[in-house]
C-alpha cells in the first residue's frame, strides 16, 4: 500500500471514530485551525451540524466567527484540520452549499439591479461562459418574491435600504437552492420587518430539511430563533442544542475572558513566528 493512500485512510478513520460524524451530517468540522500572520484566529475547532437545524455561532468580537465560516468554504486557508460536507469534500458539494457574506463586504454602488444580484446565486447552475437565461431569471424573481422584494427587482442596489439589501442577499442564497447555508451576520443593522422576513425564511428552510449556520450577535434572540448553537471564542466553548448548552456558565466562559491564557499563548506564537527567519 502506498504511503499516501495509507495516510488518507488514517485521516478518514480518525474522523469516523467520533461518534457524531456521519455522512448524513451536512457539515463536520474537525480540528480546524486558521492563522493570520501566524497568529491563530480559531484553534482546533470541532463541531457537527445535523440536517434540518438552525444553528447560531455566537462569540465576542474577534472570536473568529466569520473566519470559521470562510475556512469551511475554503475562502481562507486552513492551517490544520478537515471540513467535510455530507462526508465528502467541499469541491464535490459546492452546488449544495449556499453562502451569504457580510453585507459590508461588497460595494453597493456596483451597477447591478437587485435581480442581477439574485441571479448570481444561480451562476453555478448556469455554468461557465453562458448567459443568464430567462428561466433562471424567473427562478431568481421567485426568490425575490419570497423575501418580499419582487417590486424592486429592477432597482439599482444602492437605492435599496440596508434591510432591503440584506434581503436581496438572502434571496440570492435562496436562488442557490442549497441544502446547507452559511450566513454571516444577516441580522446586522436590519429593520424589524427584515428581521421577521429573514426568520420566516430560515424556518421555511429548516422545514424543508435544510440546515443554516448563522453568525449571530443578538444573544436575546438565540433561544427563539435557533435550535443549536456553537459558542466560539477562538476555541469551541460549547456546542449542542440551545436549551442544553446556552447557559449562563457557558456564556461567561465565552464572553468572560476566561481564555486569556490561550490568547497570550496565541500572541506568543505570533511573536515567535515573526522572530523566526
Amino acid at each position, binding site marked *: 500500500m502506498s504511503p499516501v493512500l495509507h495516510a488518507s485512510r488514517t485521516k478518514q478513520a480518525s474522523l469516523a471514530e467520533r461518534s457524531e460524524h456521519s455522512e448524513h451530517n451536512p457539515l463536520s468540522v474537525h480540528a480546524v485551525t486558521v492563522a493570520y500572520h501566524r497568529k491563530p484566529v480559531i484553534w482546533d475547532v470541532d463541531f457537527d451540524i445535523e440536517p434540518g437545524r438552525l444553528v447560531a455561532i455566537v462569540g465576542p468580537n474577534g472570536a473568529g466567527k466569520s473566519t470559521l465560516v*470562510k475556512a469551511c*468554504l*475554503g*475562502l481562507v486557508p486552513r492551517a490544520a484540520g478537515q471540513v467535510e460536507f455530507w462526508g465528502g469534500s467541499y*469541491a464535490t458539494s*459546492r452546488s449544495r*452549499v449556499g*453562502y451569504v*457574506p457580510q453585507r459590508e*463586504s*461588497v*460595494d453597493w454602488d*456596483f*451597477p*447591478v*439591479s437587485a435581480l*442581477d*444580484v439574485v441571479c*448570481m*446565486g444561480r*451562476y*453555478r447552475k*448556469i455554468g*461557465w*461562459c*453562458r*448567459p*443568464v437565461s430567462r428561466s433562471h431569471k424567473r427562478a431568481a424573481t421567485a426568490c425575490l418574491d419570497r423575501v418580499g422584494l419582487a417590486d424592486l427587482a429592477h432597482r*439599482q442596489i*444602492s437605492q435599496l435600504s440596508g434591510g432591503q439589501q440584506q434581503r436581496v442577499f438572502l434571496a*440570492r442564497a435562496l436562488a442557490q437552492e442549497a441544502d446547507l447555508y452559511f450566513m454571516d451576520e444577516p441580522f446586522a443593522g436590519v429593520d424589524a420587518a427584515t428581521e421577521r422576513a429573514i426568520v420566516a425564511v430560515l424556518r421555511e428552510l429548516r422545514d424543508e430539511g435544510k440546515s443554516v449556520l448563522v453568525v449571530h450577535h443578538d444573544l436575546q434572540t438565540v433561544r427563539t430563533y435557533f435550535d443549536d448553537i456553537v459558542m466560539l471564542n477562538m476555541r469551541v466553548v460549547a456546542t449542542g442544542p440551545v436549551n442544553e448548552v446556552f447557559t449562563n456558565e457557558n456564556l461567561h466562559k465565552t464572553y468572560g475572558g476566561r481564555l486569556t491564557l490561550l490568547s497570550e499563548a496565541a500572541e506568543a506564537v505570533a511573536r515567535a513566528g515573526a522572530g523566526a527567519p
Partner: protein
Amino acid sequence: MNFSVALDLFPLLSGLLAATTCALLGNFLVLRKLSLMGDAISHSVLPGLVAAFVLAGSRNSGVMFLGAAAAGVFTAVLVEIIKKLGRVEPGAAMGVAFSVLFALGVLLIEQFARQVDLDADCVLHGQLEGLVWYGHPETWRDAFTPQSLAGVPREIWTQLGMLAGAALFVGVLFKELRIAAFDAGLATALGINASAMHFALMVVVAAATVASFEAVGSILVIAMLICPAATARLLTDRLATQVWLSLAAAVLSTVAGYTGASAIPALFNLPAVSAAGSMTVASGVLLVVAIVAAPRYGVIARVLHRRSLARRVLIDDLLGVLFRQREAGEPESSIQELAAAMPGRAVPEAVTLATQAGLVSRAGARVALTEPGIERGVDIIRRHRLWEHYLVERAGFRPDHVHDPAEVLEHLETSPPEGPVADPHGREIPSPPASS
C-alpha cells in the same frame, strides 16, 4: 478636413482600436477601483521591453511583445505581493510597483541598450501619424487586394487581433467577471476563483496595453482605460449598458480628438498637434461633460433636484402655516403675517409658487388656502403631528423638543406610523383627506 485614405485612415483606425479595446477592459478596472493598474502596467512594460531586447538581441516585434506582456503580468503579481506583505492600500502598492519598475527599465536601457533608439516622446504619444498606407488602393473595391493589404501596417493587425481577443474575453466571461468584481467571496465559494479572474483580467490588460501603446502611446492607453468607463458609469446603473456606453464614449473621443487635432489649431493658423494627445484630451473633456450634465449623477441634475426639493419644502411650509392659521380661526393671512411666521424664508416666492400650483388664492395682500391647498395642508400637518407623537412615544424625545425635528421629517417620503388623534401638545391630528 479632407480625409485622405493614405494618411488618415490608419491613424484614425489605430486610435479607434486602441480606444475601444482599452475602454472595454477599463470597465472592470474602474469597478474594482483599480484604475491606476493601466498606468502601472503601461509604465512597467519598459523593463520588459528592454529585457526582451537584451535576451533576444533583436527588436523582433514578437519577442518584444512577449517581454512586455510578461512584465505586465509581473506587475500585477508584484502589486498583489506588495499589498499583502507590505500591508498597504492598493493605490500605494501600484504606485510603488510602477515607479520602481519604470526606473529599473531606464537603468537597464542605460546599461545595456544605449544604442537603441527608444524615444521618450514616442512612448508618451506613440506614432499614430506614421501609420501611412503605402500602396493604398484608389477605390474601395481594390482595398482587399494582396498588394493593398501588404501595405497595412503591422500595428493595425496586432490591434485588430487584440480587440477581438478582448471582446471575446469580456463577452464570454461577462458574468464571471461581474461576480468576481462584485462579490469575490461568493464567486470563489461558487467555484469561480476571484483571484484567478483578477489575474486573467490583468493579463488581458497587459496585452492590450502593449498592443496599443506602440501606435498610440501610453498616455492615450491610460486615459482610455479610465475615462470612457468612468463616463459611462455616470450615465447608467447597469453594467451591460455601461460597457456599450463606454465603447461609444471611446469612439466619440477618438473621432473628435483626431478631427480636432488638425481642425482646431487650423482656426488659429497653427500647425496640427499630436492626434493621440488630442484624443486623450477629448476623452477627458467628455468625462467632464458627463460629470456636469449626466441625467442622474451630474452636477446640473443634482442642482435641479435640490432646487425642486427646496421649492416643495417651501410650499409645504407655507401651506402648514396657513393651515395652522385656519385652525386658529383665521382663514386668510396677509403676506406680512406669513413673513413673520416664516422668518428668513422667501415668502413672496412661496406665495407665487403656491398660487401657480393652485394651492392658495390671493386677493390683494390676503392669502387663503384653496380646496386642494387645504387637502395638502391636512396631509402635512398630519404628518408633522404624527412624527411628533412618534418622537415622544417611541424615540424618547421630550415634548418641547420635537417641533424642529418634525419640521424636517414631515417632508420625507417615508410616512410616520399611525397614531392617536391628538399630538403631544394636545392638538388635533387631522384625519387623512377622504380622497387618499
